């Protein structure tokens, strides 16, 4: 067992290499050295990079690892992320029982049968976006005209946020997730969104509607600050993730015409294809941060109490023992053991919704736009390596 950290050679976050769909080569190299390897954060702090599938599952499900950023030693990728996790944190940065208390207030809206009942509504939103694209001509930016508005409209309806405010919350969400944003920019975006949601919740308390914010605002056992933090988490997580998955999936699929032809011929493949795309693309790319509360032996390495760890979903999802030719996208693969939604008690709350949105969006896009193609060379696409959530900035297409 290794007990002393060797000198870290890797500084996080690392840059992408020549293939925009592969995890940064430095993570891949680390994964080949071992499932738990030493690394250094931008602020000079030491942390462990956890790359193996089983070790990632352990970090995310063992209560000896904490998601509460108020514990000393918690790893922060940037000063902005530190500010976000410490100022009025949402339940994604809490441990049970505090986490469970708040998460359970909102789980009922994300149950599988509840989300299934939303499918016709999601289909209408997807069809509406494509109707507007085809009415306007034969070219579009798939990000601003489709991938972003679809999940934004869905989460707005569910939360009770007026969609006409989308420019405000989309811009601020982007800042919150941007690793290049300064601490003051991140704090300003957080204050902006928190103020907006606090006012909205207050309004809903007086004039309730049939939506999540109204139901939260009507409760006696949750404070206005907690409602705003929960609303912010749902609003940001609810649209940026699915939007980036939709656009990036389109890029990944269109460079494989044979797989697209199979999906068009058999829409029954879409469900499995979405799992494989989640695995292959693993858009939450920068590692889920946790801190050890006790000494833990992890993959033959001793992680000391107070040391930070980053659970790298992207390398875990390229495990060749579990997935075979893991560096390939293969829509017919059984990818259900992927960790794209994380693991443990923080595993994505919105996953049934994200799956429904992606299945409907991709199936409808391929069916209704049979000539869909990207109109710029792939080298010209701007990939968002600087964001917590990977994707493309814009995606010019024609059909």
């Amino acid at each position, binding site marked *: 067992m290794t007990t002393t950290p060797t000198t870290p050679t890797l500084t996080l976050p690392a840059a992408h290499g020549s293939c925009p769909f592969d995890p940064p080569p430095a993570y891949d190299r680390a994964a080949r050295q071992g499932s738990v390897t030493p690394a250094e954060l931008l602020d000079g702090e030491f942390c462990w990079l956890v790359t193996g599938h089983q070790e990632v599952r352990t970090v995310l499900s063992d209560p000896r690892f904490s998601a509460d950023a108020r514990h000393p030693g918690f790893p922060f990728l940037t000063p902005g992320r530190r500010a976000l996790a410490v100022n009025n944190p949402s339940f994604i940065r809490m441990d049970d029982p505090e986490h469970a208390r708040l998460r359970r207030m909102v789980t*009922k809206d994300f149950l599988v049968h509840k989300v299934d009942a939303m499918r016709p509504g999601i289909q209408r939103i997807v069809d509406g976006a494509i109707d507007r694209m085809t009415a306007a001509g034969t070219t579009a930016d798939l990000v601003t005209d489709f991938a972003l508005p679809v999940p934004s409209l869905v989460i707005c309806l569910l939360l009770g946020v007026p969609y006409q405010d989308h420019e405000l919350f989309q811009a601020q969400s982007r800042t919150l997730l941007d690793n290049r944003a300064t601490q003051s920019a991140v704090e300003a975006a957080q204050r902006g969104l928190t103020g907006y949601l606090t006012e909205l919740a207050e309004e809903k308390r007086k004039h309730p509607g049939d939506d999540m914010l109204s139901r939260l605002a009507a409760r006696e056992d949750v404070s206005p600050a907690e409602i705003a933090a929960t609303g912010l988490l749902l609003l940001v997580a609810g649209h940026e993730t699915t939007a980036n998955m939709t656009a990036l999936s389109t890029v990944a699929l269109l460079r494989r015409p044979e797989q697209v032809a199979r999906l068009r011929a058999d829409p029954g493949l879409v469900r499995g294809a979405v799992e494989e795309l989640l695995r292959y693309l693993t858009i939450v790319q920068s590692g889920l941060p946790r801190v050890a509360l006790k000494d833990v032996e992890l993959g033959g390495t001793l992680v000391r109490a107070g040391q930070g760890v980053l659970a790298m979903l992207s390398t875990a999802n390229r495990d060749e023992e579990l997935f075979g030719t893991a560096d390939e996208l293969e829509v017919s693969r059984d990818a*259900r053991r992927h960790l794209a939604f994380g693991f*443990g008690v923080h595993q994505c*709350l919105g996953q*049934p919704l994200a799956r429904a949105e992606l299945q409907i969006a991709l199936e409808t896009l391929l069916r209704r736009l049979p000539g869909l193609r990207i109109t710029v060379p792939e080298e010209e696409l701007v990939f968002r390596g600087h964001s917590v959530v990977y994707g493309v900035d814009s995606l010019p297409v024609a059909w």
Partner: protein
Amino acid sequence: MQVILDQDRCCSSGQCVLTAPEVFGQSDEDGLVMLRRSDPEPGLYADVRLAAALCPGGAITVGEATGTP
């Protein structure tokens, strides 16, 4: 096969419902996992085992049938 649930550990991810919908459901009351049947037929064993492996909270335990009625 015997399926045992620990609802305290359920975080309502829905993985079990997606993997073995014949066996697992979710309660409208509290959002937690429910068993639709506790002794699934052999054709469902593989799905139930996968559901237990995928459960992020470790709320599902699969025991082999003891043979006693």
